[in-house]
């Protein structure tokens, strides 16, 4: 039997993946922002150490317990966010919402742990402001702002999912939010190594 192309069912229209493309560019901008401040941090740190001085003031203590908990929280949040994507692709809005809500809670946990960690480091208390303190506050503070933006996006996507905007036919919003969230985990991984572990 000869099959003509006109006998085949009509292909679904190609969907312009506008949200995903815009998210990739937003992530690129955010990564470049952090690349810039990390560049300054590493350059200044190398210069101070090359002069034989200590980068962090003597009384500063950077415990690794809280950053360790944050990194684990974020790693688990990747799985949870992927659960949201998995669920929405199967029209399982209930589980998608549960996953988005759980990620939101994890975001709040990251903010609380990071803020408490900064308050314990003694960065400016005894020796006054230092260049190290300025740069660490800038990096970690910017990261917290990025987390808050991520939580606002998740909240918006959650409401839209609740309203039935996303489902197996339209997953872009949830996928875009998950991409942004994964990039946040990647950035914290760099902070964890370059700022907290390497000190």
């Amino acid at each position, binding site marked *: 039997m000869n099959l003509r192309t006109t006998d085949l069912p009509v292909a679904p229209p190609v969907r*312009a*993946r*506008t949200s995903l*493309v*815009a998210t990739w*560019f*937003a992530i*690129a*901008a*955010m990564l*470049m*922002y*952090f*690349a*810039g*401040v990390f*560049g*300054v941090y590493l*350059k*200044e740190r190398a210069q101070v150490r090359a002069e034989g001085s200590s980068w962090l003031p003597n009384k500063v203590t950077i415990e690794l317990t809280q950053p360790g908990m944050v990194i684990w929280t974020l790693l688990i949040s990747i799985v949870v966010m992927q659960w949201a994507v998995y669920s929405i692709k199967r029209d399982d809005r209930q589980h998608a919402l549960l996953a988005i809500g759980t990620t939101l809670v994890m975001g709040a946990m990251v903010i609380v742990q990071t803020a408490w960690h900064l308050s314990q480091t003694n960065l*400016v208390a005894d020796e*006054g*402001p*230092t*260049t190290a*303190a*300025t*740069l660490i*506050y*800038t990096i970690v*503070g*910017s990261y917290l702002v990025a987390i808050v933006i991520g939580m606002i996006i998740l909240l918006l996507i959650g409401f839209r999912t609740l309203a039935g905007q996303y489902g197996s036919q339209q997953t872009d919003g949830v996928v875009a939010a998950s991409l942004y969230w994964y990039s946040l985990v990647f950035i914290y991984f760099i902070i964890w190594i370059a700022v907290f572990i390497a000190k």
Partner: protein
Amino acid sequence: MTENQTETESNTDESASRPLELGGLAGTFGTTDHKNIGKLYIFFGLTGGLLSLVLHFLVRIERINIGGTSILDFGSSNQYFQTWSLSRTSLLFFCVVPLILGLATYIVPLQVGAPSIAFPRAAAGAFWAWLIGIAMHVVTVFADGGLGVPEPVTQFAQGMDPEATELAILSIAMVVIAILLASITLITTIITQRSQGMTLFELPLFSWSTLVATGIWILTLPIWLGNLMIAWVDFKGDDALRYGNVANIWDQVSWLWSQPMIFAFAIPILGIAGEIIPVSANQSQRQYVFQQIGIGTLGVLSFGAFAQPFFNADVGNQAVFVGMGLIVVLPIVAFFGGLLDTLAKGTPKISAQLILALMSMLSLLVAAGISALHVSGPALGAIQEIDSDWLGGIIDWLKDLQGTVIITAVMEHTLIASILASIAGLYYWSPKIFGIRLNNNVGILTGLSIFGGLVLSGGSNLLNGFLDESESVYMTNAYEGVWDQGAVEFFNIIGLIGSILLVGGISLAILDLTVSVILGKGDTQDAGDPWNGHTLEWATESPPSSGNFSEPPIVDSERPLFTSGGIEQ
């Protein structure tokens, strides 16, 4: 179903798919139509241009008496610096960038055949954030804020208010975030909203240049934002140490106005000239892909976020910086050569936009040439084998150009070239944007005035660079060691005449726009497609109605209206 019923349902569907259009103030403030947003950018960009060129004129007045007292009685060198730095920030962020964004926001969706810009509310939000940001920044400078001061006696020196300075940093950060948001909407539109049949290699050159420019801005402006945030965090502390110290703020952010980064704001010049010249010559552009490669190469060579002298004092002598400075001229020469070839093979019609486009390309070429000259000292010095006294003397002389007003000459040529190109675009697309043709003679006069002003002002900076006039003209010791004080002052008087011409030129453009568009005196005859345009924006009515196209166009060429059978609706 009767015929009438079908018609009624069809009308209902059509009206439901179109956004609600409001008139008056509500329409202006609440608009999400890319065409209205584009017009708002253009209007405020021209206003910002006038402000920045008036500030440029004030700085020029001050520079004619280099060793003596302040002519304009700024009060302190700090206030002089604030005027000087505002003239730079305003030229870039309040004039060049909004003019480019305005044209791109209006034209790019039409050129790619899209019914709207991607994320129209984000595009509108970006415009209002930009406008509020620039308004706040200007106010903070007049309230003794600004991006630091050069010679603080104390942390809070004369002519410097800490709260206004903090707001100045935050407001300019807001402007940058707005520009990033606008860039993301534009680049997303180009990538996802193109017509059927339009590949990236069939993008019109203006849209292609917008893609490259916004891509580079997205990759570099966040780094500049990072510099600002570091300065702000330090400034907020009890005792700013280094980054937030008011004497250092400008030094950290000044790389945006230096080569190679400054060329990132010149990329759309190539796109605008690439649209106007083939249409004026009634020829299709030959070697189209090579023209696109030229624009892309300029984009790559303008990635200047690594060249931050504050953190890397020796960057001016490093191979990558020197190499980029030397070869940035090549894509511009190749692109301009391609355009001139098209012009020579066609039957050019002399018009304001053609003259303005040629002037903008020539200015950019000169900027790239000066850039090469600026880095030629370290480049020649790297050749260790040179064993000649006279050649060594020349190399030393060329090396001395670093840190002089020759950097200002590169910036001035590049940014004024962008203004020339934007005004060229305005004259070319005015029938599309406003439904009227701007006055051709006024356009030519505008071009001559701005180009003449650039030759005098930019040329005097180039010559004074050879005489060792420091780029930091606001410093009290800026003129120690100049070769000939009288010659420097003479060239600065020439530069002052140039700045008057620059102010006159942009005033003429604003006047023409006011008379032709606002007062309705412009020529409306044949406003649909007066130039026989080649690209898709000319395939719809002028100005386009909501939704842009009655049917989604299908194209199979980069110049669908020039090649026969290139468009289907």
